[in-house]
């Protein structure tokens, strides 16, 4: 089976005024379909940068990135938007919910962009709310929910269009261990249902539950990519 993500010699150079900084220096990574991967490494090693490239939130400086067989470098901005909408789901450390919208409306957003209409959309949102155990919080705004609940809304939102890949950048970073544990449990269930899961984490116990660990150091993969 072909890799769902295939990165060859990926470089990302940031330019801040006259200073250039090479955040990723020629990375090769393959991720198989249905795999669960943890990305670890010290702060500033380039984990988030890598994740943003994987999810088409940013453009790479050089190298070749194939996502599900498609060469990402050549896609238009609308095609990239559709990938973000349907193929990958993001979960962020800071939740990134829209503050003025309810849990229900937040989950609805990717469905709106995908032009899912009427009853289908309502059904899907209700289903997702139940899936993350928040059926009774549909009308709550982010300020009216706990951190764990917000992150579960964010996960439900990431799942809205049933993406194959879930990308999570330190999803438990802002949570206590109990709610963090629930989040990890959710990711494990999703993986068992066949999703490809990539999690950035500082928590060794979370990394330990994945199939594979990729360790970054100074913008490069440390070792051969599997340090278990």
């Amino acid at each position: 089976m072909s890799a769902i993500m295939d990165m060859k010699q990926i470089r990302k150079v940031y330019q801040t005024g006259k200073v250039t900084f090479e955040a990723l220096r020629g990375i090769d990574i393959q991720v198989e379909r249905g795999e669960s991967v943890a990305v670890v490494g010290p702060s500033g090693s380039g984990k988030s940068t890598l994740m943003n490239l994987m999810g088409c939130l940013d453009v790479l400086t050089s190298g070749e990135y194939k996502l599900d067989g498609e060469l990402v470098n050549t896609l238009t901005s609308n095609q990239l938007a559709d990938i973000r909408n349907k193929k990958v789901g993001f979960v962020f450390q800071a939740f990134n919910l829209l503050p003025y919208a309810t849990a229900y409306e937040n989950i609805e957003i990717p469905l709106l962009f995908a032009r899912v209409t009427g009853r289908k959309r309502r059904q899907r949102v209700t289903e997702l709310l139940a899936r993350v155990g928040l059926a009774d919080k549909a009308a709550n705004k982010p300020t009216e929910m706990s951190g764990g609940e917000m992150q579960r809304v964010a996960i439900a939102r990431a799942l809205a269009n049933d993406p194959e890949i879930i990308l999570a950048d330190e999803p438990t970073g802002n949570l206590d261990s109990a709610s963090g544990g629930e989040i990890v449990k959710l990711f494990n269930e999703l993986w068992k249902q066949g999703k490809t899961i990539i999690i950035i984490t500082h928590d060794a116990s979370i990394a330990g539950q994945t199939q594979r660990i990729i360790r970054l150091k100074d913008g490069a993969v440390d070792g051969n990519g599997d340090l278990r």
Partner: protein
Amino acid sequence: MNIVLSVRQFLNDMRRQKLRTAMTMFGIFWGTCAIVLLFAFGKGLTEAQMKSQKGMGENILIVWPGITAKEFNGLPRGRRIRPTDDDVRFLKQNAQTLAHISPENGRHMTLKYGRQTHRRFVDGVWPEYCIMRNIIPQFGSRFINEPDLQNRRRVIFLGDILAGDLFGDSVSAAVGKRILVNSMPFTVIGIMKSKEQNNSYRGRDNRTAYIPNTTYQAMFSERHSDDFVAQHKPQFTGEIARQEIFRILGEKYRFDPTDEEALAVWDTTEGFAFLKTFFMAFSSFLVGIGFATLITGAIGVTNIMNVVLEERTKEIGIKMALGARKSTILWQFIFETLLITGVGGVLGFAFAYGVISVVPMLNLEEFIGIPTIDGWGAIMMSCLLGLVGLTAGIFPARRAANLQPVQALKLF
């Protein structure tokens, strides 16, 4: 993006930016108001002016005797040229450019009815004088006619104000009454319907009395008239009509038709055209001021949208991460600017409309006319507002839409 969420987001933004939004909307409101009001008042004023200018008549030339300033065929300059009634009749028969013509002969006379005595201007004219000068007899009365002229009848037509002065409350029964004009009995045959007129060369028509020119000449044994009034056909210009008059009379009195001093001419159309231009410039000026205000408002909208953009960068990033296309972001921004301009504009328009509907009750019509907005004005205003909103929104919107998702999210 669905409308409910867009509106919710808009309201949310506006709540966070109460003062700024209020001021921006006020800018648009004020700009719209100013344009609509200035336009409406400018139009009302122009129309009122035009109407009263028409009181003098349209396409009117007034011709007085003159003194030649050029030698011609061995004749010296400095000769006096004084057309007679026969010349006027000759012009009437031969001038191609003229529609109507009438000599005018007038002086102040004593008019007496009962105990009322007034010294007023009495004008000896031909019947068609009333056509040229838009003099309309009141119901049941008439102007001087051809038999009056031929028989030198002692009949008199009164301007409406003059009639009021003489007859007071019984003005409606004035027709048929006898009055004394310089102690000679005259029969009142008609009274003028009141009209607006702001322009004259010897008193307003509504204070003047008219008698047949032949009667006048018999009274004072005059052969020459003071002047004659001619109305040229609308397809000719006043200048062409003037040239024809000079050619015909120049032949008779043997003066150079290019000698502008031979006859004194007032071409009222010239003044009319000037007035038209003047008021057009005046209206444009007013509208220009309103437009400038509106532009200021628009800059305010751009400004507020830039602030909104700054505040909302993160939200834009989130939406992009969830699959929003550039166009979605673009339209949301434009939608919001249109909403701000729309609300401001509608309020401004409504307010201006209110003011305009109240004005006629103030009885200032004589001075400022009736301000009016027509359908086209309203449509143009809406288009203008839409354009302003679009231009104000497009720049921040494009800035927002061109962000990389990750830049917007500030994930690092």
